[in-house]
């Protein structure tokens, strides 16, 4: 029972991480993130960078789909906008890296605002189809606007360079991507402590009464689209610095489905859900590859097993949807509750 009406107790209550245990876990996480690059080999650093990029993009899609209830299958295309913006700026103007990433975010945001316009009228499946249509249009632009995108052969991107340091290895990129992703995730968490985030959730839960309660629907739906594609744009920019070549085939529709699956598997409309979902979707295929590698099989058998891997991955996703519709974050919460009460209740 909370009695205090003192301001300090509200401040405590309103903070992002309010318990001592949470602070403890944050410290552990910080140490792990700082130590990881020194212990991990190139392969694991590569995966860590990929996970950071995917978390940034999934967090963006979660704002739109998980929190505002607008289903989009355009996230990869918006990443493409960000990636092309960064690649073109890097190639043609050689502007600073952080500026390029921001620009990637903003240009993607403009794209998001345009694609979001029909969202006042169309919802659900129809909106999803509209975002697929937008992806197709964007793919066409990427492939045919030669002057800027380099057509089908795409653009090769020089390594990111900040203050004379060239970010040309996964080890170095880790120190660029992880802080950016952390900032983006914290930004999203902050959003939902204010009127903006509450408005998004209200629109998701019942948009018509939200309007009568003072929320202009179109403005907030567009804002959600804009934010979500800004996140995608920055993630796409990081992607460009990571893979160093951007082509029209870099951001296929299946990638948008990948992000949507990450949001759902992780747990829609929770910050932790997007993080866990992105980790799951990135790591499980790798883990399956590793497992197959360990099996004492001939090269031929390994080749045959490759589609089986995809099937197992798909089955795992379906399994989660069936057995834990609230996603990975719910499993995490249950584990936490268990240890919270343990050993008094099992």
């Amino acid at each position, binding site marked *: *029972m909370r009695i205090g009406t003192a301001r300090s107790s509200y401040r405590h209550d309103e903070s992002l991480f309010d318990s001592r245990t949470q602070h403890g876990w944050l410290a552990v996480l910080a140490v792990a993130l700082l130590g990881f690059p020194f212990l991990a080999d190139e392969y694991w650093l590569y995966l860590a960078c990929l996970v950071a990029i995917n978390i940034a993009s999934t967090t963006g899609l979660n704002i739109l789909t998980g929190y505002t209830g607008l289903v989009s299958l355009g996230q990869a295309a918006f990443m493409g906008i960000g990636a092309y913006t960064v690649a073109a700026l890097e190639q043609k103007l050689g502007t600073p890296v952080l500026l390029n990433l921001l620009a990637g975010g903003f240009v993607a945001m403009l794209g998001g605002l345009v694609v979001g316009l029909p969202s006042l009228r169309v919802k659900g499946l129809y909106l999803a189809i509209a975002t697929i249509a937008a992806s197709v249009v964007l793919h066409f632009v990427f492939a045919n606007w030669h002057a800027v995108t380099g057509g089908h052969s795409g653009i090769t991107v020089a390594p990111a360079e900040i203050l004379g340091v060239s970010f040309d290895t996964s080890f170095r990129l880790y120190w660029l991507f992880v802080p950016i992703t952390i900032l983006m995730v914290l930004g*999203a968490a902050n959003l939902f402590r*204010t*009127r903006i985030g509450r408005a998004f959730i209200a629109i998701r839960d*019942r948009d*018509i009464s939200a309007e*009568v309660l003072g929320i202009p629907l179109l403005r907030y739906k567009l804002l959600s689209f804009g934010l979500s594609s800004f996140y995608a744009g920055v993630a796409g920019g990081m992607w460009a610095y990571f893979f160093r070549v951007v082509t029209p085939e870099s951001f296929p529709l299946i990638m948008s489905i990948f992000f949507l699956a990450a949001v759902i598997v992780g747990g829609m409309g929770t910050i932790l859900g997007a993080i866990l979902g992105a980790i799951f979707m990135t790591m499980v295929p790798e883990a399956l590859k590793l497992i197959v590698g360990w099996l004492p099989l001939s090269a031929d058998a390994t080749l045959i097993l490759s589609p089986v891997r995809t099937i197992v991955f798909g089955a795992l996703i379906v399994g989660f949807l069936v057995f834990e519709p609230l996603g990975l974050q719910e499993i995490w919460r249950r584990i936490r509750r268990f240890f919270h009460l343990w050993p008094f209740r099992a």
Partner: protein
Amino acid sequence: MHPGKASPILEVEGLTLSFGGIKALTDVGFEVAPGSITTVIGPNGAGKTSLFNTISGFYKPSTGRIRFQGEDITATRPPERARLGLARSFQNIALFRGMTVLDNIKLGRHAHLRTNVLDALFYFGRARHEEMKLRQEVEERIIDFLEIDHIRHMPVSVLSYGLQKRVEMARALAMRPKVLMLDEPVAGMNREETEDMARFILDVREEWGVTVLMVEHDMGMVMDLSDHVVVLNFGQVIADGTPAEVQANPEVIKAYLGSGDVSELRQRLHQPLAVGA
């Protein structure tokens, strides 16, 4: 409490609203005096909720005007009407299930906050300041007042019907209402919950100086609380006056007789509410 001849805070004039062939409202007009408790009554399907929905901007009337504080708001968008001070609760409860009680209430303040996206992403300066102030005000003025301290961190979906109605009222109060519109605030409540709610409504008027416009079927409560009663039947105003006048009006008796509600009405008229102040 007799508001006398002060100019009305809300004025409805010649409202007509149809859904396809059904005329939900026909030439509806009445006035709400500032500081009054005005109640709209009428048999099921009379058009009371449709009237509320038209006033809050949900439906667009085919003819007629709505004036709020002297200004014509007939063409004003619903969010702007909310910002001007028209707050409401819904007959079939429209709380946001994905939010806690506290967040539902805070949401009501939306139109009066200034936090923009950048403030929100970084959560410093204006965002933090505004949120802290809002939290304090919600706690001290609304949660304490409506006696819902114990449920503030709960998701609304686990609450009883009566408590959900109370949270809806809390959210409407967070909207800084000038006119508070309550659509059947005690429907489905037991006697005790009804008496609590009646007391809250009186207190809101006294302590906050808010004008109340409500729709209610509980006749005991209507007669006890209202300064002014408007009776709708088949989308038309058939009587309009003090509770005593309306009660004596033969048209009203007939309307309820027609819908078979009259015995219930009589019974309720003789069973006044015990409203402690």
